């Protein structure tokens, strides 16, 4: 069969064909779609976990039970999951674990310069990167085999263009039997393994073998595999020019230099050292095209080889990515890049009728010093609205305001800081900050803008909406952890909301104000009525 698919859909298809049994993840542009598609598949159990760390930990569990597990997150999500990730790396697993991470190369969906390959390098975890949807589908199967053969999680790297790019995919309607394997592991803890290794002279002792996993041995084998795998391929050209390319940049370069020789890397870490050496030796000038930071370039240069990368393609101001125009312009110095015309920009804004919008209006009116997080709650910080002063990561605003106010006691002349946060953020990581505020007797006012869904990524349900249980409502949880002053106000009652916020800010206690109104786009009516 043939179908036009985004790489997101193709990853989902590849996962089904590989017999994936469990999928966990946290929504994040641009790869939310992978889980949305897999939710339709009967053979797969899916969950939107409450954050990325939890999602990965769930996958560790399903893997230990013997099942193939897929974890999906955007690039910044891997930061949240980093603790679980670095613990997982280097410990034996049962069912394969593939972690799909979408880097926002070119800052199309967000505002970061992160490159998930750094995590692979840091933790000796292999990284696989497809160039189109067909490869996205096919490489998932290889990634699972690799994961099980070398007992390691595999990072499957996508980017903002690739995720949303549709190309023709050939696939079998046939669906694989679920592979299931159950190896015997006594210890799954890398740290314990290390301590044992360091404490005893002979790790081969019978009593110790269950505690020691020789992850370095697996890594050495993986390096040999990198030189053999069909994920990497050489295409001989007609000229002496050589290009080593990864990801979608391969197709950009292929179009501009159809006669060059290519070493296309689908396995981007560990590197196929022998093939790279051979390729560079047999070509006059070898160029390197890798989206993101010059990481492969550094690895190749540390092999003592010569390659042209960053010298020709500085990482700024092009924001670490390639387009056909950028490549052509740098090589041939002739293309006019798409000119920046003087067309006024369009920036996203909060919808009228949303609690975010209502709270923003109050902040603006009273010029309140405010911290916010990311998602719809962060839009007020963009310069065309410009009413939020501090924006950091998901769930961060409570802690920042608590710290700021703690450092500036009540009698000081500094303005008090207000913290605002969407309900999605609250359940993601914000709740930890609130527990800390109770623990440390914070005297800060926080507003939870509850539009009863994770709106920015397409309206995924939060725990409060999904359970439809008063005990799981935000107010119950806040009271349950010891917040005395909890108020719930419909954000349509803007005057009441305004007065409540101002009054709370004049008090020296921790106050939580839940400003609630259903999302105007992703309205989940019935459940909301029930919660009220």
């Amino acid at each position, binding site marked *: 069969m043939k179908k036009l698919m985004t790489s997101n859909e193709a990853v989902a298809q590849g996962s089904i064909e590989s017999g994936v049994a469990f999928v966990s993840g946290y929504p994040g542009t641009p790869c939310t779609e992978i889980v949305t598609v897999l939710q339709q598949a009967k053979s797969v159990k899916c969950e939107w976990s409450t954050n990325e760390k939890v999602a990965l930990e769930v996958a560790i569990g399903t893997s230990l039970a013997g099942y193939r597990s897929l974890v999906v997150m955007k690039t910044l999500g891997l930061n949240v999951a980093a603790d679980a990730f670095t613990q997982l790396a280097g410990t034996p697993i049962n069912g394969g674990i593939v972690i799909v991470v979408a880097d926002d190369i070119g800052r199309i969906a967000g505002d970061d310069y992160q490159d998930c390959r750094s995590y692979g390098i840091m933790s000796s975890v292999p990284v696989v990167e497809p160039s189109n949807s067909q490869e996205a589908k096919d490489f998932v199967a290889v990634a699972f085999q690799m994961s099980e053969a070398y007992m390691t999680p595999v990072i499957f790297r996508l980017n903002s*263009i690739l995720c949303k790019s549709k190309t023709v995919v050939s696939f079998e309607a046939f669906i694989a039997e679920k592979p299931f394997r159950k190896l015997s592991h006594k210890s799954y803890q890398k740290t314990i393994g290390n301590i044992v290794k360091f404490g005893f002279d002979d790790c081969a002792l019978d009593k110790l073998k269950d505690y020691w996993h020789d992850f370095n041995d697996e890594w050495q084998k993986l390096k040999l595999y990198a030189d053999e795998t069909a994920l990497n391929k050489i295409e001989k050209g007609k000229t002496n020019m050589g290009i080593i390319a990864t990801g979608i940049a391969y197709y950009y370069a292929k179009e501009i230099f159809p006669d060059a020789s290519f070493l296309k890397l689908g396995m981007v870490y560990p590197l196929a050292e022998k093939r790279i050496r051979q390729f560079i030796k047999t070509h006059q000038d070898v160029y390197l095209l890798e989206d993101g930071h010059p990481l492969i370039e550094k690895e190749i240069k540390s092999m003592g080889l010569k390659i042209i990368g960053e010298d020709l393609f500085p990482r700024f101001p092009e924001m670490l990515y390639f387009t056909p125009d950028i490549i052509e312009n740098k090589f041939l110095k002739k293309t006019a890049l798409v000119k920046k015309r003087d067309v006024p920009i369009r*920036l996203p804004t909060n919808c009228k009728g949303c609690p975010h919008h209502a709270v923003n209006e109050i902040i603006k009116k009273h010029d309140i010093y405010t911290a916010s997080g990311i998602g719809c709650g962060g839009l007020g910080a963009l310069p065309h609205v410009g009413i939020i002063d501090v924006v950091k990561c998901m769930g961060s605003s409570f802690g920042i305001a608590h710290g700021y106010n703690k450092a500036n006691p009540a009698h000081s002349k500094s303005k008090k800081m207000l913290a605002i946060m969407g309900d999605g953020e609250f359940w993601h990581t914000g709740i930890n900050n609130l527990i800390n505020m109770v623990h440390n007797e914070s005297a800060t006012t926080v507003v939870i803008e509850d539009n009863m869904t994770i709106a920015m990524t397409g309206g995924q349900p939060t725990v409060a909406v999904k359970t439809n249980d008063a005990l799981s409502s935000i107010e119950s949880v806040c009271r349950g952890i010891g917040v005395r002053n909890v108020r719930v106000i419909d954000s349509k009652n803007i005057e009441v909301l305004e007065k409540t916020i101002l009054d709370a800010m004049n008090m020296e206690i921790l106050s939580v104000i839940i400003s609630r109104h259903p999302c105007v786009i992703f309205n989940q009516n019935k459940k909301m009525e029930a919660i009220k």
Partner: protein
Amino acid sequence: MISQLDIIVCGIGGQGIVLANEIISTVFMQKGYDLKSTDIIGIGQRGGSVISHIRIGKNILSPLIKAKSADMVIAFEKYEALRCYDYLKTEGLLITDKEAIIPNSVEMGLNEDIEIEMIFEALPCNKTIVDTKALLKLQKLDMKFANSCVVGALSKHIEVEEACWLEAIKRVVPSQSYEKNIMAFREGRKATSLKGEGFDNGFK
């Protein structure tokens, strides 16, 4: 005869750009072409700019279209048409909705407005302007069908039979809105004269 067709579809998040892209892509998939189509959305679902690149031919490599190489730019609004104008090749065709929707950065005082109609008038390219507001009004349809109306105008410039477009719309849009999308498509197609002035994409 050229064997490749590169189309940019652009507008504002919420205008149905992704759906229009799907309709166009489905038409050419049915015809057996190789195809790559990419939606660059960003956080466009809250009112930002959205651009789709559609590349149709025998063996498409890059999914992105280079500057000054698109055969057509299809815009759902004039500011976005202008923003994507530099993708268009000299002999290319610009199809746009008549509407000009002032960007929020102007309303909020971050950017100064431009003389959009004047600048637009002066663009030296082939243009087809679709008055979707008036056309949809004829059929008592609301503006959310503007995308199908513009696609109807586009269909007049591509030598693929109408039935193929209708089939694509049927496959792509939700069944309950199929009839209305067809009505909008037909209005756009009917109102467009055969081939833009001097425009020939040679795509047969």
